[in-house]
């Protein structure tokens, strides 16, 4: 096998196959530490706060939110788009990087895919609550109802229903398919009978037969081929929710690529936020190395720059269009009452990632962690700016208005953060956070091991 003299090894510490299994299974087999208990108590409290606020919203009605007749979409849709975007890095890492044969993905794909699923779950909650009567949510599906009406297939909001549900199901399938061999590993390692039974059931009777591996690899590759355009389609469709309207500031053809780049940008930021902590707490520094962090940071510069260019293009096009409403909308974004939101967005998304051009900063964990949180905040504000600033000054000055979230809305958002982290913390206790079998396939080609020269 060829070993590059220039590149760093993907996995450090000269690991044997057995050590890899042991290291990655250790967090599941051992007792959780203090940090885990603290994390889960915090996220569970946040989650219950969110649940209470959701309950209150459903009980009292959408009047508990700060929405008004001008701004019908506020934090709800901002959070929805933000969470969907965060989900995109997982599929990007597992699907697009698999197709591009990027071997560094193997250390991070499992946790990123898990993150995708949890993020899409959080996202899905918002349209559901915003309906006001979530029990009637099945109205969005095309079913033969008593009035012989069909859902509106021409509406981007219905495309969203199909896109998000497909995305959730396919991501779940992709994640679980990758998990099966590793659940098999856990089944063969755990001692207690109950655990053995549960892992045995979940492993689907995996034996490790070559025929199964052959099919499994083919399956993963084609699922990746299917999921890659899905990543692009889902956020394009989300952007179409806005772009097909006639509101100034939304009605732009740049939205689909710009939203997709933004989604991958924010998703990678969240992966970094999670993994920088995870690798430290679970002692996985040899598997998620500085080289992995650096590679992700490179994707952040690329996507962040695309987002930056998109902002500037929007400004240019609004001026060049000669449409006064468009020109006003963008001037108002930068200099209107919500100028501070626009400033946060620009600082966090356009200026701060440019610091990653310096190699030293790309490989600095503390800096990367802080920056990743900056980007999470910046991308949230991007959605806020797009939604609220466009709505609060529409064609009719008589309907101009301002928007301020209520505590209920803030609570629901905090609640979804709690839900997300609760799911992630439970996940790291139940399943291997790194794809054990996949890491083993890259370890021989990763340098530090002695490579046999015999040809086959």
């Amino acid at each position, binding site marked *: 096998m060829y070993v590059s003299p220039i590149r760093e090894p993907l996995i450090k510490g000269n690991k*044997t*196959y*057995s050590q890899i*299994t042991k290291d990655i299974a250790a967090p599941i087999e051992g007792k959780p530490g203090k940090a885990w208990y603290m994390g889960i108590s915090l996220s569970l409290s946040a989650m219950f706060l969110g649940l209470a606020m959701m309950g209150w919203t459903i009980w009292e009605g959408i009047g508990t939110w700060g929405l008004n007749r001008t701004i019908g979409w506020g934090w709800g849709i901002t959070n929805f788009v933000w969470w969907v975007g965060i989900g995109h890095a997982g599929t990007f890492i597992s699907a697009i990087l698999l197709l591009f044969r990027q071997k560094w993905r193997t250390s991070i794909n499992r946790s990123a895919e898990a993150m995708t699923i949890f993020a899409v779950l959080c996202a899905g909650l918002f349209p559901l609550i915003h309906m006001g009567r979530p029990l009637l949510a099945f109205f969005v599906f*095309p079913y033969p109802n008593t009035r*012989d*009406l*069909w859902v*509106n*297939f*021409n*509406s*981007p909001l*219905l*495309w969203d229903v*199909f896109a998000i549900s*497909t995305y959730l*199901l*396919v991501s779940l*399938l*992709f994640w679980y*398919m990758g998990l099966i*061999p590793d659940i*098999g*590993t856990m*089944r*063969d*390692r755990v001692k207690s009978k109950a655990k053995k039974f549960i892992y045995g*059931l979940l492993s*689907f*009777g*995996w*034996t*490790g*037969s*070559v*025929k*199964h*591996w*052959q*099919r*499994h*690899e*083919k*399956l993963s590759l*084609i*699922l990746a081929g*299917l*999921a890659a*355009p*899905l990543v692009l*389609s889902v956020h394009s*469709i989300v952007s*179409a929710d806005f772009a097909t309207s006639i509101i100034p500031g939304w009605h732009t053809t740049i939205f689909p690529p710009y939203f997709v780049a933004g989604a991958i940008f924010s998703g990678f930021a969240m992966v970094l936020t999670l993994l920088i902590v995870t690798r430290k707490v679970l002692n996985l520094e040899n598997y998620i190395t500085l080289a992995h962090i650096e590679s992700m940071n490179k994707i952040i510069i690329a996507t962040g720059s695309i987002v930056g260019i998109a902002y500037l293009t929007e400004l240019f096009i609004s001026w060049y269009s000669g449409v006064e409403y468009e020109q006003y909308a963008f001037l108002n974004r930068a200099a209107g009452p919500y100028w501070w939101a626009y400033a946060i967005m620009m600082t966090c998304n356009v200026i701060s990632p440019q610091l990653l051009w310096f190699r030293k900063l790309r490989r600095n964990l503390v800096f990367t962690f802080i920056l990743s949180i900056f980007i999470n905040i910046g991308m949230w504000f991007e959605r806020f700016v797009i939604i609220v600033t466009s709505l609060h000054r529409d064609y009719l000055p008589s309907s101009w208005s301002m928007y301020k979230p209520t505590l209920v809305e803030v609570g629901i958002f905090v609640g979804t953060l709690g839900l997300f982290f609760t799911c992630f913390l439970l996940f790291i206790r139940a399943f291997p956070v790194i794809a054990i*079998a*996949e890491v083993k*396939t890259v370890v021989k080609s990763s340098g530090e091991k002695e490579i*046999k020269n*015999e040809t*086959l």
Partner: protein
Amino acid sequence: MRRYISAYFTDEQNLLRATKDLRDQELSIQDVLTPFPVHGLDHALGYKRSNLPAVAFVCGAIGLVLAFGFQTWAFVVDYPLFIGGKPHFAIPAFIPITFEVTVLFAAFGMATAFFISSKLGPGANNVIHDERITDDRFVIIVDLDEDGNHEATIKSILEKEDAKNIQVKEIEK
């Protein structure tokens, strides 16, 4: 009575060479079990390419026809209603849902085919030969006839490639 030899390897390169030698001698290999996909092993064992891509294509095509057909039927035949100035047969507006349903059908069709053809699924009762297979052992299982004609040849090939724990096992048919 069915007899077979099982042995384990600690290095996948030895396993690959042993597999090739056994196949050259036209000995029947029942199964090879590995902790991770070893590339080239399926080729060495003479396995054909998997048909899963074809299954995915067919399932995807079914999803495509269903989704596009359903939208067309609903908006052209069953309840033609003008919405947003779009024509009844609004092809571009039907594409997103058609695409999503195509992907959904292809993905789940292929996964189902994988489970059925590999006899995997919740509650599947497959024999686990050795618990270390999912850790770091590569196990090869070679069929023997009742007279044990090839036993010596098989053992010598396995030993040459540093196989450990070579065992002859018998199971009732």
